[in-house]
């Protein structure tokens, strides 16, 4: 079967999807990155391959997420796209009339405004993590509640408590205070959801006009407490797609498919052996070429350098193609 692979390497989760030639989702894998994107890419690819026993032929690869460059080196990607475009493409494929996308992931949150399938405006959180999944993760751990049950517990609340949402640290102390006063856990959980929504509206969505159809995606969309909090705040229906947690990867796969079909070229995919059999190591060092002392990262496969990045002047980044690295100093 002919497939297109989409990979989204985020700070918290790594997602892999295969779509077929008609754009139908054939398989998805959602795993935690756990700070080791190289391992996550290997594992994810292996899981994608396992089971069912369908032979698939990868015609194109698209990568996105903060680890998109790394993933493109390891897999050989045709399209390397930022998260905004990838999420927008996936949502507008599924809901052609979508006007607003709320996307909340582990480390960042975004709002994307679309008009007839095209992004017209977007914003990402800038300073504070209080409006992201990591914040909920942390507070759930503090309350000793598995994150998976967070939402289900929160919606049981009839009287959510008010928690300051401006800042992650203040929200936490506010929450502890409410705990000590003896408020029921579900009211605190719903209060946290509402605080996150207020934070999102003030920091990320400020000044944007939110219109229907609203799509809520990203890992945090699993939390039904948060869905309800958004619905209450916006007084609109919130649509959560079936595959809400892998939308970025779907977008990347669709983009790869469009690209390959348009250009009629062969994929840059490096093949199964390359990713599964090689030993990948990443090393970082400080370049001593100038007082900038950039921290350069080198990705190697079986001792052969695949890519460098992190240097502002690009002398390392561009050195692989030129083959001449004599004047590069390492300290």
């Amino acid at each position, binding site marked *: 079967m002919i497939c297109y692979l989409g990979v989204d390497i985020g700070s918290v989760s790594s997602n892999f999807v295969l*779509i077929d030639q*008609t*754009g*139908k*989702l054939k398989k998805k894998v959602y795993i935690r990155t756990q700070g080791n994107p190289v391992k996550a890419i290997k594992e994810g690819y292996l899981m994608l391959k396992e089971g069912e026993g369908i032979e698939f032929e990868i015609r194109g690869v698209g990568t996105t997420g*903060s680890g998109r460059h790394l993933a493109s080196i390891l897999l050989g990607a045709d399209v390397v*796209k*930022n*998260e*905004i*475009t990838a999420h927008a493409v*996936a949502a*507008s*494929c*599924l809901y*052609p009339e979508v006007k607003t996308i709320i996307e909340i992931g582990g480390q960042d949150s975004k709002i994307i405004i679309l008009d*007839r*399938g*095209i*992004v*017209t*405006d*977007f914003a*990402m959180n*800038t300073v504070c993590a209080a409006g992201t999944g990591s914040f909920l993760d942390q507070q759930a751990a503090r309350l000793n509640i598995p994150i998976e049950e967070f939402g289900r517990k929160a919606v049981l609340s009839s009287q959510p408590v008010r928690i300051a949402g401006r800042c992650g640290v203040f929200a936490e102390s506010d929450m502890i205070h409410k705990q000590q006063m003896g408020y029921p856990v579900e009211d605190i959980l719903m209060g946290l959801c509402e605080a996150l929504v207020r934070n999102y509206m003030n920091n990320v969505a400020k*000044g944007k006009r939110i219109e229907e159809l609203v799509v809520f995606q990203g890992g945090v969309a699993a939390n039904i407490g948060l869905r309800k909090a958004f619905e209450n705040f916006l007084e609109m229906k919130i649509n959560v797609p*079936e*595959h809400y947690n892998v939308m970025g990867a*779907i977008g990347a796969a*669709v983009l790869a*498919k469009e690209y390959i079909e348009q250009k009629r070229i062969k994929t840059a995919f490096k093949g199964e052996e390359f990713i599964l059999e090689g030993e990948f190591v990443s090393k970082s060092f400080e370049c001593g070429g*100038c*007082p*900038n*002392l*950039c921290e350069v990262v080198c990705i190697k496969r079986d001792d052969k350098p695949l890519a460098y990045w992190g240097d*502002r002047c*690009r002398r390392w980044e*561009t050195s692989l193609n030129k083959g001449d690295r004599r004047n590069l100093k390492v300290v």
Partner: protein
Amino acid sequence: MKVTFPAMGNTRIAIKALLEGLRLEVIPPPPITKKTIELGVKYSPEFACMPLKINVGNFIEAIEKGADTIVMAGGWGPCRFGYYAQVEREILKDLGYDFKMVILEAPDFKLSELFTQIRDLAENVSFLEALKAVKFAWDKLKAVEVMEKDLEYYLPRVKEKDKAESIYDYALESIDKAYSKKKIDNILAEARNAFCNLDFHGENILKIGLLGEIYTILEPAANYDIVRHLGRLNAEVCRAVYTSSWINDHLLGGILGKSNHKHIVQCAHAYLGSWVGGHGQETVGCAVDFARRGYDGIIQIGPLTCMPEIVAQSVLNRVKGEENIPCITLYFDEHAGTAGISTRLEAFVDMLGRKKEREGTKVPVEIFG
């Protein structure tokens, strides 16, 4: 007397030429590196903006290289910059450095004031020599700007971005070393020739207007080299601020030929009627101007906590809607990671490209059957 001055992008080349022409020994500020910024951040007030921090770092590094006199610009109006020379002097004095600071104030109403200040700096130079120095510095400034505009034009259009960048870097270095107008003209012609000989990819080019606070626009170290970054994404950048036009508009009152400053202020009028300090009103005016000239998008940049730009940003929201032009704002501070900035720039460029390309023609593919 060994003179140094604050770095502000390529204006350093012109300032160096001017001071050398006045027969002063010049120690230009060393290139801005992570260390410069670290020094500046360490000794500056936390809530001051990025330009002050970089200035302080520049001065410390230059003094350590032997400079004993600092030439710094003054200013007035609501922007804090007017007070920076004084603040910087106090910071450096507290650190125990021994130096003299000469503050050049923008003339209130008479151009001769500025010239007198420059003359005071160079006592043993004849009037004619001083005039010559000013002229040569001006030539260099114009040459540098020709190169900057060339890079802005060619970088997005050529296949080999690295080559275009090295032509530019080499030309600037040569202009800095040049000692005659003729030599400068040669360098420009050679560089233009080299640019033209590169391979062009022939794809669509997006046009983006870059506006905001002057220091952030002019100093690549303060804006993560946004012009090159966008150029590599095949977007041509047009800046709202070029040093020569700024000098003409703000210091010389427009005597050096046609100025579009009045037009910009007029464009701003419907949205922002008063001068809010710094480049606030010009930012709004230029945004309107870019929109009406058919640019694909605008990017506003400034240092974090910049008051005039914050005022302009809130007004830009209206401009965006009424003039129908996409716009984003990026604030720069010492710890802004490049990853976040490149994601935003990429997404912005993508958005403009897709909008231009596929307006209304897309038939969505079916997922999830």
